């Protein structure tokens, strides 16, 4: 690929938007994950009794929250894949058309 063509793409609004969107989503999801996990550790450290609260007949909040974080970790990767497959890849395809 010629140098001018490369520069053209790098400078294009579409490409800049692609990179910006990619990192906005990635960093937002990263901080969300950090917040959920560190938040959980802090609740465990400072609010043990809250987690002992019974839920239903045999369960308690601790078990629900713990299982919830495992499920959340998986689902959030699913949301990212959904976004990337539908929006990111489409934008990449659009930009590559010009190559």
């Amino acid at each position, binding site marked *: *690929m010629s140098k001018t063509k*490369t520069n053209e*793409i*790098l400078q294009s609004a579409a*490409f800049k938007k*692609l*990179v910006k969107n*990619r*990192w906005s*989503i*990635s*960093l937002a*999801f*990263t901080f969300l*994950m*950090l917040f*959920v*996990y*560190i938040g*959980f*550790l*802090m609740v*465990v*450290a*400072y609010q*043990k009794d809250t*987690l*002992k609260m019974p839920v*239903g*007949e*045999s*369960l*308690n909040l*601790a*078990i629900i929250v*713990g*299982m919830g*974080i*495992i*499920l959340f*970790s*998986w689902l*959030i*990767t*699913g949301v*990212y*894949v959904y976004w*990337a*497959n539908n929006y990111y*890849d489409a934008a*990449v395809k659009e*930009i*590559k058309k010009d*190559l």
Partner: protein
Amino acid sequence: MSLNLLLQVSPAGTTSTLGTANPVSIAIFFLFVAVTLYITYWAAKKTKTGSEFYAAGRNISGFQNGLALAGDYMSAASFLGIAGMVAIRGYDGLIYSIGFLVGWPLIMFLVAEPLRNLGKYTFADVVAYRLRQRPIRIASSVGSLMTIAFYLIAQMVGAGTLIQTLFGLDYEIAVFVVGIVMTCYVLFGGMIATTWVQIIKAVLLLSGATILVLLAMAQFNFSPGALFDSVKEQYGADMLAPGGYITNPLDAISLGLALMLGTAGLPHILMRFYTVPDDKAARKSVFVATGFIGYFYILTFFIGFSAMALVGKDSIEVLDKGGNMAALLLAEHTGGSAFLGFIASVAFATILAVVAGLTLSGASSISHDLYVHVVKKGVSDEKGEIKVAKRATIFLGVLAIGLGLIFKGQNVAFMVGLAFSIAASANFPALLMSIIWKGFTTRGAVLSIVTGAILSLVLIVLSPTVWVDVFGNAEAIFPLKNPALVSMTSAFVVGIIASLLGPEKDAADKFESEKLRTYLGVGSEK
């Protein structure tokens, strides 16, 4: 294996048959080794080029790689160790296991796709892409090899001890068997064989653990509520909630960061992203891996509590204070000694697969990073590179056996934490900054890696995990059990300051053109 031997299955009695040669487990283990060696033979015929040896010809599908990633990550330590921790300490075991899962989404968001698009065989390819090759390759391979070495020691010692307990086989023989078989996988079958060993192991481990949970839950009419009630009745409601695991919040955060970000810096995990055809398959494989690993930790949670309720804490602690035998005792309790044999051989297979993955990534670091880019200055023919990779495999196989023998009977529990701390402090910051920061320089990367590695090593020696638990001193010099909070932060800070102090124009210029490859996959390895 003769039928005669198979028939000698002793009935499940009140006392455990653990530690005696169990014919079922020996039969299943031999079957596993035979099948995987046959796969290795088949893979060897397809392993000729560098891309085939290191990256399975980039022909592994996203789903297959997801299973293989899960196989690489779910060690026997997490299977037996976490189930045991739940069985002895209840809910605290779950807190620990969650730490091992939450790093996976970060692999997805931060490294998987850029890694696949920019690199070739090792994660150092990405760091060195626009920086000066030699210093970066030397520093990253030190980070990689240190991570791999400590992880390997923990696995080999674990293997020897576990097999001794399970089969009554000598520790030394176990270490030799594991070392020789895994060397065969890597040496002859490269990444193709290693990938299939991981996939088979993942399927065996996940299905074995699922059956174990189903058998145990059958005794509670498949009602989790009944299981938790039984735990409450016998051991009190506190077992189902956080106990003494987190006493010092800084300790918890430091270990949490090591597990979370260290996962994104494990060389043998990162290397797997080169086995898929493109970045789309790379992201799919993280999704699949995260799902299976999460499911696995839910299973270990139920295995732990079922063992506590059905086998009893005391009976578990009699055999092993850490509870490591809980899953196996539960298997014997619910499925008799034949099922115990099955689960035991799955644990053995698990160790084999994990050490094979570690050895392959260590060998690629030696051959691809050190030999090609440092010794040969980037110019080497493929034949020469593979030859060195194979010699490195043999060297690492011998080293693994040697280390397993040297560390026999030593307390190596801290080594997994140390491996994660080095991965989080030496490998991850340099990798992340090289991907996202234009101003990152060669000097910044080298100093960041060196800082992360040295601080992890020195601080863990001074920490309660080694200074008190291993050396037996009364009080630790460094207060945190895992150093990642300090060592990783320092690695970032040093990398940033060193880069700001001496900008590298060449690297910044190349960052722009590298974007085409990072984000569009233009020019990525096919």
